[in-house]
């Protein structure tokens, strides 16, 4: 195996651009992708993909001791006319097509779910109203799988809303036909004790556009793994995320964009605010440009705003390039503080302390929130941000 040559760039938190003969993104995982949980060793915490995660707070999702209970979560789907909503057995051919589990919990979810939800938007159907999937935790342990498939040239917005309390491992597949346009907003607005782990796979068809917003507020531990691959040239992925990590919360977003096809684009922008003792956010941004992916254009960015002492951010952008024939590739990561001097400055201009904090955090998130384009979701997110801030003052 060839050694990857790692060239650190810029003043990122822990970023690197690797020029690799073989992908380190793939090889640093402890096992190859598999649908079978038995193919993954039980993590001990020192593996590259687990080293930031407090295993003891996974409530047994990682070692097979978390057994599904009857009332784990309730899923309700609200879809406009023309959309097919089904519950299917695991034999259904659409399941798992967008990607294969890459870690033990994703494989555990895949091995343990009983029924999968499938939402299908037929080809050339353009929806004017969002599809809403409400996942409400009822306090139990659950494994799940959801497929969202858009036929060729279909257009849809899907909002997946996670609320309540649960220990949940669930994967989501997004399958986009040629020329399809899908916007997904996944909101993790869990109660304080919830644990949520999942892998989100998007397979983007030729000339299709995938836009994803991952919004994480709640939970004791949330660990999501959004992944994108392309089924044909001309595909575009925009992966946006925002998280507000409070005292004691662990929120981890691990992204992979696999440029496995020529002439595709990706743009990743995740922003997080942290406050309180023990707040821990982890952002891993892997972008892989395979040798055959000529004409790739990619950029990834992570910004964090630390509002108080005692919070911790691990931000690791990782760009791996196997061909020089690309349009562009870049990454950035920065973590800033909102400190007493900034507070003083704003207050010295007449702005009360709580409003000063709100101003800073709203401003920080605004550019991302505005791109969602779904009014009630945008309004709710801004409200939620204000609530989070009020809780801290």
């Amino acid at each position: 195996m060839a050694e990857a040559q790692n060239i650190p760039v810029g003043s990122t938190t822990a970023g690197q651009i690797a020029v690799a003969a073989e992908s380190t993104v793939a090889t640093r995982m402890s096992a190859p992708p598999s649908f079978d949980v038995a193919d993954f060793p039980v993590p001990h915490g020192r593996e590259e993909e687990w080293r930031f995660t407090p295993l003891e707070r996974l409530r047994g999702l990682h070692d097979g001791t978390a057994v599904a209970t009857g009332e784990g979560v309730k899923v309700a789907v609200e879809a406009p006319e023309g959309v097919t909503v089904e519950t299917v057995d695991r034999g259904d051919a659409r399941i798992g097509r967008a990607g294969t589990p890459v870690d033990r919990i994703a494989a555990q979810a895949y091995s343990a779910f009983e029924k999968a939800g499938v939402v299908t938007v037929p080809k050339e159907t353009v929806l004017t109203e969002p599809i809403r999937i409400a996942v409400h935790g009822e306090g139990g342990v659950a494994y799940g799988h959801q497929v969202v498939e858009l036929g060729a040239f279909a257009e849809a917005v899907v909002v997946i809303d996670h609320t309540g309390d649960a220990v949940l491992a669930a994967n989501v597949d997004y399958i986009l036909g040629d020329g399809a346009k899908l916007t997904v907003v996944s909101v993790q607005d869990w109660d304080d004790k919830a644990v949520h782990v999942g892998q989100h796979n998007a397979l983007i068809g030729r000339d299709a556009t995938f836009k994803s917003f991952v919004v994480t507020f709640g939970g004791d531990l949330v660990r999501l793994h959004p992944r994108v691959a392309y089924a044909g040239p001309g595909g575009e992925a925009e992966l946006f995320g925002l998280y507000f990590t409070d005292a004691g919360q662990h929120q981890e977003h691990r992204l992979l964009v696999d440029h496995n096809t020529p002439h595709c684009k990706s743009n990743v922008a995740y922003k997080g605010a942290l406050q309180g003792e023990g707040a821990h956010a982890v952002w891993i941004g892997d972008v892989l440009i395979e040798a055959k992916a000529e004409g790739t254009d990619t950029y990834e960015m992570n910004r964090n705003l630390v509002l108080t002492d005692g919070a911790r951010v691990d931000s690791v952008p990782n760009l791996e390039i196997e061909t020089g024939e690309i349009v562009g590739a870049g990454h950035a990561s920065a973590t800033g503080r909102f400190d007493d001097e900034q507070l003083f400055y704003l207050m010295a201009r007449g702005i009360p302390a709580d409003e000063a904090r709100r101003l800073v955090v709203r401003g920080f998130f605004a550019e991302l929130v505005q791109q969602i384009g779904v009014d009630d979701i945008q309004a709710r997110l801004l409200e939620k941000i204000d609530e989070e801030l009020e809780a801290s003052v």
Partner: protein
Amino acid sequence: MATLEIRDLRVTVEADNATKEILKGVDLTVKQGETHAIMGPNGSGKSTLAYSLAGHPKYTITGGTVTLDGEDVLEMSVDERARAGLFLAMQYPVEVPGVSVSNFLRTSATAIRGEAPKLRTWVKEVKEAMERLHMDPSFAERNVNEGFSGGEKKRHEILQLELLKPKIAILDETDSGLDVDALRVVSEGVNRVRESGEVGTLLITHYTRILRYIKPDFVHVFSGGRIVESGGAELADKLENEGYEAYTKGGVSA
């Protein structure tokens, strides 16, 4: 007429696990329409005076009084002081990530004026004020002080002074780090506000250079945590020629 009265102000600061007295009894009265220059060597306590008046939490008031039109300033929080009409143009304005200049100015003006300025007149007001300070319109979309040059930071401070129209403006070494052109632009801004006759100005500086552009009514020499000599503009000329030596020698700064 607005009057800021400082009486026997004593201030300490915690440094190296010790409490150090920085201001040792400052007496000063600044009235609307007046310009007072406070001059002194480094470490004399000039900036401490500025930040103490604005209410920076680092400084502890151990004695004396500060009133604005009879109201007890020392009892007010930082934002209350600003809304009461005190303005501090800072020597080192901090970066505020995520907040654009335009959003910041509007939020601040809303807080100071007690109501949101009407959007149309506000946009015009800001635009004109920026033009007068030779600031590019794109400036409004940048984050507060983020990546600003020294000159841009000071212009931004004076822009706020022009828009917020305080009763008492404290300018803490606004001239430091400016080249002659920037100094002229910034001074013109200060003079525009002064010409309104509605602001009392406390101009804190190490150098006499800025006093060629902004003519003070009174000059005070600050040394060892208090005012050691007061006079008219002619006192600045004396300092220009003789420096601070006369004030730092002997027991004054001890």
